[in-house]
């Protein structure tokens, strides 16, 4: 995978909304550029014309973000040759989809096996970081891409290659998985009380609480450490 931007040690370093000089912008210049000049989005009238063999949709407008990603994979080389997207969401959601679309199609296209490995952090690096509470927006991008690649595997009959979500059930009563807790941390929860407010996790299954607390620490460290 090609990452042009330098990998920063601390990705969670917030881009201050109100810079110390009083004139700071909410986002990095890269985010701003992609937000105001989005690349590869699906224009009006392109819907029918654009040829694709993989499509992924994640999120919902009720949650505040929704992304749809269409990819055209060359079956011979397994490289993503073209992609289009549409995103409902804030500036960082739009910018992170745009930058992702650039990452997977530049230099003749990324192989699907590599594309599926893109992590939220890779998108963050390319964007030059995001404010803390916006990090969850970049998570949707890689999820949409994974869904689109899985869809490509499905459409081309390669069912064995479909990557099923490796979610692990933590709270057996409410069927809450480690992914749900990851999601809660990304949405701003930092301790058991916060996470319980969002998920009611561990209330019906108190035995799961130590595992939940471990996961909160793990994901907080991972994204904001």
């Amino acid at each position, binding site marked *: 995978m090609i990452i042009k931007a330098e990998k920063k040690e601390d990705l969670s370093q917030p881009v201050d909304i109100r810079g110390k000089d009083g004139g700071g912008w*909410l986002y990095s210049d890269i985010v701003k550029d992609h937000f105001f*000049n989005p690349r590869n989005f699906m224009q009006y009238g392109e819907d029918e014309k654009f040829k694709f063999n993989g499509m992924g949709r994640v999120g919902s407008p009720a949650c*505040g973000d929704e992304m749809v990603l269409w990819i055209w994979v060359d079956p011979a080389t397994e490289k993503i040759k073209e992609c289009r997207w549409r995103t409902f*969401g*804030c500036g960082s959601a*739009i910018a992170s989809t745009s930058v992702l679309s650039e990452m997977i199609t530049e230099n003749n296209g990324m192989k699907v096996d590599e594309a599926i490995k893109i992590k939220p952090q890779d998108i963050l690096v390319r964007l030059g970081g995001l404010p803390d*509470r916006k990090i969850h927006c970049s998570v949707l991008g890689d999820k949409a891409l994974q869904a689109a690649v899985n869809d490509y595997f499905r459409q081309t009959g390669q069912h064995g290659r479909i990557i099923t979500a490796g979610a692990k059930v933590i709270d057996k009563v409410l069927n809450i998985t480690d992914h749900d807790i990851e999601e809660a941390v990304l949405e*701003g929860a930092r301790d058991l009380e916060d996470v319980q407010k969002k998920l009611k996790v561990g209330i019906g299954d108190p035995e799961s609480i130590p595992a939940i607390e471990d996961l909160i620490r793990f994901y907080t460290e991972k994204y904001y450490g």
Partner: protein
Amino acid sequence: MDATRRDFVKSMLPKPKKIRNVYFDHAATTYMDKRVLTSMQPYFSEIYGNPSSLYAEGRKANGALNDSRRTIAKLINALPENIIFTGSGTESDNMAIYGIARAHEKRGKHIISLATEHHAVLNPLEDLKKQGWEITYVKINEQGLVNADDVIKAIRPDTILISIMYANNEMGAIEPIAEIGRKLLQYRKANNSVYPFFHTDACQAAGYLDLDVEKLHVDLMTINGSKIYGPKGVGMLYIRRGTPIKALILGGGQERRLRSGTENIAGIVGFAKAFELAQMEKEKESERINKLVKYLWEKIQKNISKIKLNGPEIGQQRLVNNLNVTFMDIEGEALLLYLDEYRIMCSTGSACTSESLEPSHVLTAMGLPYEYSHGSLRFTLGHCNTKKDIDYLMNCLPNIVEQLREISPVKLLEQQHANYHHHKK
């Protein structure tokens, strides 16, 4: 990339010939009126005394403090000794709620309020809840309005306080304070009780509505300076005589022992001046602003599809300077960022701009589904706005909305919002 693809910004978002600073966020705060600034100026370096001091310099400061108190008392038809100066509207709200709660907890631990209140009211209430208090949030209709009878019906023998805002900061609903006040008086008479006390947060109302406490029948009323072209960092709480309240800030015993700390004389003088000007000019200014808001709403309706007015219809039940509109299929922060490029300032109920990442609690409490709250913009007009500002806004807003809709995968149904329902994530 396909050479025929449009250059996004150049084709969709033409830069205006002349950039104009347009402030449509007067409910957030206001700039200070020059006349207010002038009134304050002597009280920084020239008249600097501590009003508690006996000598001439102190007496001068004390004189200014008393004059300000009298000015404000007259404007709300109260006695000067019933005005307590504080450091903000938030502090006044906290003082009303904790002050009454602490002084009357032996009598009962139940408070009535609305889910659409400002956080300066809601968060103290939620804090009291953790300490064993019970809070009833009376239901509101889909326009954000409460029914006075529903408030009275919610009263229990252990209810000690009702706190209901005069006008809502987000969607401008004007609550029937005077009607609630009248019915509460009847309730108290019938039950031979002084309880419950009645507080209203009138911060948003101060520039536009009648604040006569004898007409409103309130026992406590919060007002601050920063929404009425006055200074920030100064507010007041009106406390009716015979309303026992416990002080939260202890010290030198200023403000009738209810709010210790050397008085912010310059701030108080400016606040009184701003309040006086606001009340003096409110009819004329309301009429002018009303025309502008109507003009803006007509232009939005004419030029942009798939929109919804949040809050009461424009008229008697809506704060005159507030327009809160949902633009379907798109998200408010993205809209704000584009508008900011044009130097247009307003706010949104979207989760993306809040600390909690939850959409506006006000719009949610009114039954507005999350996806509609996310796409809401609030325009609050004021002194500086003219028709030109609205024309400037409407030159770019339809294009911005169209552009964000093009890149949005969401296509809500036009009539979907008619089926109000509470969404669960």
